[in-house]
C-alpha cells in the first residue's frame, strides 16, 4: 500500500489508528501491539502476499539469534557469540544477495567467461534491503550488548512498524522499542496528531506535487529522448536531482508524520542535503540513517580512521562502493558509489592539507558533483548516462530566435537559434518549477526545522490544509523511488 493512495489515507490509516488506541485504552497493550503487527503485515502484503513468508522467516531467524546473543553471558554455550553473529550476518546477506544480486552476478559471470547460465529473474521482495540492514544492526547491537529483546511480539513491532517498513528510515531497536513501552505513548496525543498531520501533509505535497511533476521531465530526458541539447540535458539531470530528493524526503516526512500519530519519534533522515557545502556535509544531511548504518557497521568495523591515512581512505572508498551496491544491482550504482567514495577521499585530503574554500564556491561544486553523480544513479545503463552527460557538457546550445540579432557574434561558436527544446516544448512552467524548487531547497526551512517550530495555530492549520489539497492529485499514482532498493 502506498502512503500516497486513497486506500491508505482514507481507510488503512484511520482504521489502524483508532483500533490501536482503542485497544490501548482498554489496557489491552499486547493486543494493540499484535494488531499493529497484523496491520503492518497487511500493509506490506497489499502489493504482493508472496513476499510475506520471506519477511516472517527473516524476522523469526534474526529474533532467535538476537535472543541468543542477548542471553549469551547467562548460559554456557557451544558456539561463541562471534560465530552466532557471523551466522546471522551471513544469513541476512545471503538472503539479500540471492534476491537482489543473483542475476547481476550471473550476468557478469556470463560476460567474463562467455558462459550462458540462465538468469533467475527473481522479483525483488519489497523492502528487503531495508529490513535486512535493520536486522543486521539489531544483531550487532545485541552482540555488543547495546540492546536486547526477549519478546517476539516486540521484535515484530520493531521490524514491521508500517511507517518505516518499506523504505526506512533504518532504525535501531534501542531507539524504537522503549517508545512503544512508555505508558504515556499509549494514549492519544492531540499535540502529536496535529504535528503528525502537518508533517505528513508536507510529505504528501512533496511527493505528489513536486516529485511526481519532476518525474515526468526526468523520464522524458533519460528514457525517451535519443539525444539532448545542453539545456535539455541540464533540465533532465536537475529534474531527477529534485525528483529524487522530494520523493524520498517526502516519503520520510510521511513516515515521520504517521509514526507521530502513534506517538513514536522516528529519527530524521534528511536535513536540507542540497544546502551542503562539502560531500561530507552532504552525507550528514542525505539519507542520514543509511549513513549512520554505513559508518557504524561498515566503516568503523573496517578500522575507520584508526589505522592510518591510507587505510582511512581505503575504508571510506570501500564503504561508499558498498553503499552504491546496496542501492541496486548494477554497474551504474557501483560507479555512483565509487564517485562518492572518491569525492570523500578528496575532501578528507583537502581538509588534511588545511585548504579553505569560499562557501558559495564550495556549495556550487558540491551541488554540481551530486547532480552529475545522480545521472549514473538514475540511468538505466551507461549509454543512457553518457547521453545525458554528453548533452550537459557538449550538447548543442540553442538560443531563442528573438535573441539572434543580439548574439549574432556567437554563430562562430556553433551556437544556433530555434526552439530551445523539442523534448520539453509546451512545458511552459518548467523554468518556473526549477527556479521555485531551487528557492525551496536553498532558502526555506526543511521539514525537520518546520517540525521544531510547529505550533497549533492558524498559520500551521492553513499550511496543513493547503498541503492536504495534494490528495486531489493522487490520481497520478506512482511508487516511491526507494521502494526499488
Amino acid at each position, binding site marked *: 500500500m502506498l502512503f500516497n493512495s*486513497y486506500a491508505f489515507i482514507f481507510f488503512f490509516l484511520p482504521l489502524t489508528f483508532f483500533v490501536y488506541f482503542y485497544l490501548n485504552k482498554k489496557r489491552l497493550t499486547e493486543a494493540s501491539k499484535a494488531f499493529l503487527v497484523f496491520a503492518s503485515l497487511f500493509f506490506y502484503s497489499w502489493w504482493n502476499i508472496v513476499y510475506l513468508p520471506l519477511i516472517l522467516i527473516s524476522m523469526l531467524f534474526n529474533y532467535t539469534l538476537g535472543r541468543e546473543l542477548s542471553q549469551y553471558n547467562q548460559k554456557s554455550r557451544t558456539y561463541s557469540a562471534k560465530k552466532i553473529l557471523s551466522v546471522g550476518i551471513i544469513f541476512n546477506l545471503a538472503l539479500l544477495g540471492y534476491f537482489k544480486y543473483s542475476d547481476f552476478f550471473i550476468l557478469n559471470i556470463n560476460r567474463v567467461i562467455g558462459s550462458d547460465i540462465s538468469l533467475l529473474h527473481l522479483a525483488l521482495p519489497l523492502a528487503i534491503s531495508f529490513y535486512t540492514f535493520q536486522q543486521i544492526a539489531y544483531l550487532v547491537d545485541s552482540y555488543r550488548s547495546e540492546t536486547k529483546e526477549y519478546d517476539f511480539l516486540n521484535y515484530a513491532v520493531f521490524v514491521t512498524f508500517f511507517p518505516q517498513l518499506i523504505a526506512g528510515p533504518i532504525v535501531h531497536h534501542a531507539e524504537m522499542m522503549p517508545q512503544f513501552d512508555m505508558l504515556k505513548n499509549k494514549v492519544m*496525543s*492531540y*499535540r502529536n*496528531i*496535529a504535528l503528525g*498531520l502537518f508533517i505528513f501533509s508536507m510529505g504528501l505535497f512533496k511527493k505528489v506535487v513536486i516529485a511526481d511533476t519532476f518525474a515526468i521531465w526526468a523520464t522524458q530526458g533519460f528514457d525517451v529522448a535519443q539525444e539532448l541539447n545542453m539545456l535539455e540535458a541540464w533540465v533532465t539531470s536537475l529534474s531527477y536531482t529534485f525528483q529524487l530528493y522530494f520523493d524520498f524526503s517526502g516519503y520520510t516526512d510521511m513516515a515521520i508524520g504517521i509514526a507521530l500519530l502513534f506517538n513514536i519519534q522516528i529519527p530524521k533522515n534528511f536535513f536540507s542535503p542540497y544546502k551542503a557545502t562539502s560531500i561530507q556535509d552532504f552525507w550528514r544531511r542525505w539519507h542520514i540513517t543509511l549513513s549512520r548504518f554505513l559508518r557504524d557497521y561498515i566503516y568503523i568495523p573496517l578500522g575507520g580512521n584508526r589505522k592510518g591515512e591510507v587505510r582511512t581512505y581505503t575504508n571510506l572508498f570501500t564503504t561508499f562502493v558498498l553503499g552504491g551496491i546496496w542501492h541496486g544491482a548494477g554497474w551504474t550504482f557501483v560507479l555512483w558509489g565509487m564517485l562518492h567514495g572518491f569525492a570523500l577521499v578528496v575532501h578528507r585530503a583537502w581538509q588534511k592539507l588545511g585548504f579553505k574554500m569560499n562557501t558559495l564556491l564550495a556549495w556550487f561544486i558540491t551541488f554540481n558533483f551530486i547532480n552529475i553523480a545522480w545521472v549514473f544513479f538514475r540511468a538505466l545503463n551507461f549509454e543512457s548516462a553518457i547521453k545525458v552527460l554528453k548533452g550537459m557538457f557538449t550538447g548543442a546550445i540553442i538560443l531563442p530566435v528573438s535573441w539572434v540579432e543580439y548574439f549574432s557574434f556567437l554563430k562562430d561558436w556553433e551556437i544556433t537559434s530555434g526552439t530551445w527544446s523539442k523534448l520539453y516544448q509546451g512545458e511552459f512552467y518548467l523554468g518556473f518549477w526549477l527556479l521555485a524548487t531551487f528557492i525551496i531547497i536553498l532558502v526555506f526551512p526543511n521539514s525537520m526545522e518546520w517540525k521544531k517550530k510547529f*505550533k*497549533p*495555530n*492558524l498559520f500551521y*492549520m492553513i499550511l*496543513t*490544509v493547503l498541503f*492536504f*489539497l495534494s490528495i*486531489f*492529485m*493522487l*490520481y497520478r499514482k506512482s511508487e516511491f523511488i526507494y521502494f526499488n532498493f
Partner: protein
Amino acid sequence: MLRSKTYVKVLFSILGLIIVSTIGYVVYFAKHYPIPIMDHISFDAKIQFIREHVNIDEIDTVVIGSSLALNNIQGIYLEKDSQKVSHVLNLSVWSIDAPQVEQILGLTDVFPKLERIIYSGQFTSFNHANSFKNFDVNFLKRYINHTLNPLEYEKFLFNGCKDILFCRDRQLSWVKEYGDNHKFSYLNFDYTGSAPLNMHGKDIIQKRWIKVDGAGQHPNALKALERMLKKAQAKKIKFYFVQTPYRQAMIDKYPHIKDIMQSFPDEMKSILSPYNGTFINLHKKLHLDDSHFADRSHLNNKGSKVVSEALAFDIDLYEN
C-alpha cells in the same frame, strides 16, 4: 495559539468539509455531465446517452464511425424513410480510428435485436490506427445495462472523478461546446444519437473547409475493418460501409485526393466482399454541391438529410 485538541478538531472539520464538498460536487457532476471513462468527451457522452436515453432492446441498426458518421448520418431519416430500419442508434463518436470503431462495436452485444451495422466514413477514416487504452467492454456493457452493483457504480464514479481538476475542466469545456447558444450548440444528439450540424454560411470554419487531407491508409486500420466484418458475419449481422460525400472542389484541386477517391471504393469492396459486406458509394451517387457541406468532408444538416434518405433507399434495395 490554540489548544492542541481544539486545533485538531478544527483541522478535521475543515478537511471533512473539503471532502464532503468534493463528494457533493462529484455527485452533481455525474448527474449533469458525462462521467470521464476515457479521455474522450464524445465517447463518454455517447455512453451516458445510451445508458440514460436508449431502449437497447429495440435497436436494430447501429451507425458507427467518427464524426463522418455522427454528423453525416441522421438516424431519424433512416428510420423514417426505410422500410427495413426501425430503430437506429448512432454509436459514433468524434475523432476515432478504425481500431477504436472495432472496440466500440464490442458493445453491440447489448442490443439483442441488432440486424445491421452501418460504418460511415471516407478514405480519411483509415489514415491512422489508434485504439483506446484500458477499454473494458464487459464493464461498459454492464454500465449501459444498469447491472453494476452500487459499490461498483460508486467505484466507477470515483475513478472517473478522482482527478477532480480534470472533471472541472470537462465541465467547463462541456458548457462551452454544448451549453452556450452558438454554432456548436447543435452538437447535441438527436434521439438516435446522431448530431447533425446546423452550420451554414459564415458559421463555416474556413480552415476546415479547405484543409487538405492525407491519402495514406494505415494497414492496421484496414485490418481492424476486416476483423469487424468477420465478427459481423459470424453473428449474421449485415454490414454496410458507406462512403459519404466529399467536396468536389478539393478532389479537382488535389491530385492525390482524386487518386484516392478513385481507388478507395475498389479497395473497400475487396475487403468487404469476402465477408458479404456491402459497399455504398454515396459520394458518387449524390454528387452534392457545397451547400450541403459544413467543411470538406462533414455535411451540414441539409447534406446529412439527403445522405440519410439515400442510404435508407439503398438499404431497402439491398435487403429486399
